[in-house]
């Protein structure tokens, strides 16, 4: 049990990484999603290019590029900040796609009604389309969240002391390898299953019964 405080420290880092980068991804991803459905072709093209690149590059490659490559061109952040930026940039591509398919679930009549009372594109999105789209997006966004939880583990490979990193380090230090991994596993299971349950509740609470 002597390794447990260390492991809990790693758990805190994992949670901080998850929450910060998911919030960043939510904001950036929504903006990108809006860009992808906007009437401006250059914004649509930018959104498509962003998603095409960030969804197809492995997260670990992004992390390695950011942590080991970018200092060469004078871009240096702390390890933790780099990790948050990478995770947020990466997850934003998935949030963007979720927003896009969320918008698709809103019945056409809603958009037509919004236009017919004279709302502009931005107003219609903000007041009519997105509030409804987000209700349909709870489950997919929860999946992105779980993806971020699991994705944070990759920061261990570039040296951030998260749950996975501490787990492997403690395994090397103490002679109880499987127990340490069992604890780390249990923490991950609790986070992912817990957020799944919460998402289910949230979804029922905000659902629109059509």
């Amino acid at each position, binding site marked *: 049990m002597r390794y447990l405080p260390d492991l809990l420290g790693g758990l805190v880092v994992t949670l901080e990484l998850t929450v910060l980068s998911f919030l960043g991804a939510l904001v950036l991803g929504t903006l990108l999603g809006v860009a992808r459905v906007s009437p401006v072709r250059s914004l649509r093209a930018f959104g498509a290019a962003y998603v095409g690149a960030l969804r*197809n590059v492995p997260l670990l490659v992004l992390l390695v590029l950011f942590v080991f490559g970018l200092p060469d061109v004078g871009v240096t952040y702390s390890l933790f900040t780099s990790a948050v930026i990478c995770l947020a940039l990466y997850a934003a591509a998935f949030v963007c796609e979720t927003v896009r398919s969320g918008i698709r679930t809103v019945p056409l009549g809603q958009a037509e009604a919004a236009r017919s009372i004279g709302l502009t594109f931005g107003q219609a999105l903000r007041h009519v389309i997105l509030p409804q789209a987000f209700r349909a997006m709870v489950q997919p966004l929860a999946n992105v969240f779980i993806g971020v939880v699991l994705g944070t583990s*990759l920061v261990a490979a570039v040296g951030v002391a998260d749950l996975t990193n501490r787990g492997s380090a403690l395994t090397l230090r103490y002679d109880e390898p499987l127990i340490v991994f069992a604890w780390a596993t249990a923490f991950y299971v609790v986070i992912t299953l817990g957020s799944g349950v919460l998402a289910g509740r949230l979804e029922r609470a905000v659902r629109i019964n059509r």
Partner: protein
Amino acid sequence: MTSGDDYRILFDEPGPRARRTIRIVTAVSIVVGLVLAGLAVRQFAINGQLAADKWRMFTEWPYQRFLLTGLVKTLQAAAVCTVLALPLGALLALARLSGTRLLRWPATVFVELFRSVPALLLVYVFLLGLPRFGIVLPVFWQLVVPIVISGTATVAELFRAGVLSMERGQFEAAYSVGLTPGQAMRLIILPQVVRRLVPVLVTAVVSLLKDTTLGYVVSYSELLNSGRTLAQYTQALVQTYLVVAVLYIVVNGLLSRLAAHLEQRQRRRGTAPIRAEAVVTLVT
């Protein structure tokens, strides 16, 4: 997936004022984009990273061959992971859907457990944990086995969602002509599910391919790990990692495009392909 035509409903055919606004936003966004790109290039330039000798190696065959060998090993690892994870995932889904508790419960536990654990943690178990008990896998399998374990759990959820999304009439019709549940599954349900799952399974392959970057951790010389070796040898870190990133984007981009193409073809033919994000994310 076309350039936004599916969203025409969100905005009217632009009139003169809207057209002007669109023109202004277009101009501003292009200027901002050019400025940002210029700043990035400047950042490279003032740090001397645009120097020709920092990039020349990518035109020379020995370096190209080194990276391409890494890419081939990435593809090999991804192929082995795919060949193992897809059938195992399908079997696991069938076990989870079966009426026998002895099959259903272990399958459920396996899927829920390994969907919730990062593949990297499993890699460390095989890399650092099991050797204490005298279990040491060859490097290739130290990479592939953890990816297959977590990939199998993901694929199982895709198959299960596929079976659950089948119309009940398909089961009822199969039973009414006298097929047993096993026969109905094998002859009627699965063939349809597999066809509808193909696009999403291609996306699953992309995520397996991304997982093979964990070779960086186990020191299996796939593309990312080869990139690290090359970067350390040439001291051109940012260049090498950029080239590696572009290679991954090209390969995965082709697979993603194939998935989108298959999905659209199915939509045209009136079969509803199964969407991944409803069930699981293939994020990492």
